[in-house]
């Protein structure tokens, strides 16, 4: 037998110690003065490191991001970035200034066009575009960060952190980094003697820095009811009567958008008139959407667990602790990883919107010239084969898809879209832009948000297509064409085939559901303005100034 090779088994720990020693040699304790943050980053980050920069579509570690982008590319380079969202200009600066060259992420919203340009210039290598839960999973497998730069509301003298309502991704990031020899640096909005509650214990955090200004939070989930159209009201009526009521959907997630905001605002009115209170929409995986306030106040909603918070909703959430998850201190605690888990396994329905859908039902929000990713939608908009517990909605959907002897249920994955977007861009297309994007990105797969075989229903102004009941790809195609309105895809329908599908209840028109489109009025909305939402909340909701016009 050969003698075992001598191998060091604690190189990560040793590397960590050397980094901390370099910081100590520069005179740093655990509290870093903001003006010296670049010295600290250059001391503890090494070329080739995997760095996690916290930022989602809400809370952003913006001070640390800008500081990292201002570090010297001679000192720090070839970084491999792992981050939920590429949202801030400084996120892209890292690549343009030569500090980082590889990126694994989930969503790039506003920076999508700059990102596409960098890819074309081959100045950035994209590892993969993930859904959130998938990216978090990889933090614990092959994408564990060497250094995590995070954002917290407050730190105490020991370095314990309070994350506030926007807990979001922080627990997942810190757990992966702190327990695998990594370094955790937190920017905080304030230093306090006593924290309202401890969200991250001090011995998981190496350094804290008081940021010159509070971390940025985007009010991403606020939709002004004043902008909801009659067509959106019509589609919401169809969704409520034709899907929510028929399946008895109690546990669900809503995507962001005016289509789903319209549904939320019809719960206290239209859905109540249909006798659905207590029968649908009782348990939610959802950010605290201001447009859900009327449904909560009407007694429709029993529980809401949130991925993050929403600007202006803090006092309202704190005052409704039976509904929202809050700490002993009274303030909200969100958690993206757990809420995504709930969205995957514990919800019977996901409903969201898209920019494009093809004839197989595949949908994508990726359009030419922009690389955006999809955040949590691919996770929640998928039918999880790992689910084992039954519910009436899940069983009914499963039996529609697999017949009366089906051995599994089905999640309802609903896409609600008006057939044309603004500027007459058709949503229904023969081929998604995603295929051309795949070529320009050199990606392994086209960026599809929700796969067609996961989609159960499509709602448009023309009607509802139930894809669970389709038995062949041809039926599925005609069902989709049959609700695609006057788009070229819709006009190319086989009218006889669509009428046949209508006879079988696979395609349903508003009149088949007993809905007269002319009754789709904004008067049905429980709130028709942001001010109405404030009134519903008893003055507890404090909308950001850009949503105030009074």
């Amino acid at each position, binding site marked *: 037998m050969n003698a075992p090779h001598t191998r060091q088994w604690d190189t990560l720990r040793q590397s960590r110690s050397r980094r901390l020693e370099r910081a100590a040699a520069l005179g740093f304790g655990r509290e870093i003065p903001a003006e010296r943050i670049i010295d600290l980053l250059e001391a503890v980050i090494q070329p080739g490191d995997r760095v996690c920069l916290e930022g989602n579509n809400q809370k952003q570690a913006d001070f640390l991001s800008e500081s990292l982008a201002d570090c010297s590319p001679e000192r720090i380079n070839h970084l491999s970035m792992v981050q939920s969202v590429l949202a801030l200009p400084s996120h892209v600066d890292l690549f343009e200034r030569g500090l980082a060259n590889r990126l694994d992420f989930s969503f790039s919203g506003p920076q999508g066009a700059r990102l596409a340009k960098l890819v074309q210039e081959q100045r950035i290598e994209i590892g993969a575009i993930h859904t959130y839960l998938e990216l978090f999973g990889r933090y614990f497998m092959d994408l564990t960060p060497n250094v995590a730069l995070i954002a917290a509301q407050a730190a105490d003298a020991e370095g314990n952190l309070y994350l506030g309502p926007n807990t979001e991704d922080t627990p997942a990031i810190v757990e992966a980094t702190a327990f695998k020899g990594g370094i955790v640096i937190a920017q905080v909005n304030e230093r306090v003697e006593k924290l309202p509650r401890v969200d991250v214990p001090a011995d998981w955090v190496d350094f804290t820095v008081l940021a010159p200004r509070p971390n940025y939070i985007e009010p991403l989930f606020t939709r002004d009811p004043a902008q909801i159209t*009659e*067509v959106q009201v019509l589609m919401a009526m169809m969704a409520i009567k034709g899907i929510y009521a028929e399946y008895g959907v109690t546990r669900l997630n809503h995507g962001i958008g005016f289509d789903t905001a319209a549904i939320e605002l019809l719960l206290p009115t239209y859905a109540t008139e249909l006798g659905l209170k207590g029968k649908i929409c009782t348990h939610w995986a959802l950010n605290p959407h201001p447009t859900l306030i009327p449904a909560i106040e009407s007694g429709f909603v029993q529980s809401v667990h949130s991925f993050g918070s929403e600007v202006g909703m803090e006092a309202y959430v704190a005052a409704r602790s039976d509904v929202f998850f809050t700490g002993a201190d009274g303030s909200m605690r969100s958690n993206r990883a757990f809420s995504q888990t709930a969205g995957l396994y514990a919800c019977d329905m996901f409903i969201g919107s898209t920019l494009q859908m093809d004839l197989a039902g595949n949908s994508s929000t990726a359009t030419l010239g922009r690389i955006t990713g999809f955040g949590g939608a691919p996770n929640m908009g998928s039918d999880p084969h790992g689910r084992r517990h039954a519910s009436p909605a899940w069983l009914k959907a499963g039996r529609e898809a697999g017949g009366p002897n089906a051995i599994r249920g089905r999640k309802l994955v609903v896409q609600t879209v008006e*057939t*044309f977007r603004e500027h*007459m861009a058709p949503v229904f297309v023969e081929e998604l832009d995603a295929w051309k994007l795949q070529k320009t990105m050199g990606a392994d797969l086209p960026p599809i948000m929700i796969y067609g075989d996961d989609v159960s229903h499509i709602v448009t102004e023309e009607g509802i297509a139930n894809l669970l009941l389709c038995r062949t790809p041809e039926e599925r195609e005609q069902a989709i064409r049959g609700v695609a*309105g006057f788009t070229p895809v819709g006009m190319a329908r086989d009218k006889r085939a669509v009428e046949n599908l209508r006879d079988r209840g696979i395609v349903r028109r508003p009149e088949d559901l007993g809905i007269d489109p002319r009754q789709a009025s904004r008067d049905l909305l429980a709130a028709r303005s942001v001010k109405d939402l404030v009134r519903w909340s008893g003055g507890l909701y404090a909308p950001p100034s850009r949503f105030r016009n009074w």
Partner: protein
Amino acid sequence: METLEFRFASPPAGTAADPALCGVVGSGNLEILIRAGDDPAACQLSIKTSARGFGQVWQAVLGDFAAGHAAGGTQVAINDMGATPAVVTLRLAQALTEYRGGAQ
């Protein structure tokens, strides 16, 4: 700006009533005026639209409307600011209901 004219056969809308005006000329919206026309078996439509090049879509949307509703004997004037077919269809149905005095 583009002007389009269409004429479709359609069952008579019934007794002539006062003209009906529906909608507003705003982005993504349109204004529809329905008046009595001269041919009780046809619906005549004239459209002024800010979006050029959608004649075929208008023809399909309006043809469906005339076939699916009793709109004969009417003259319809539309001022459009880029409304989608969904909005056009809804607004036409609302305008016709109003023209016929709220009758379904």
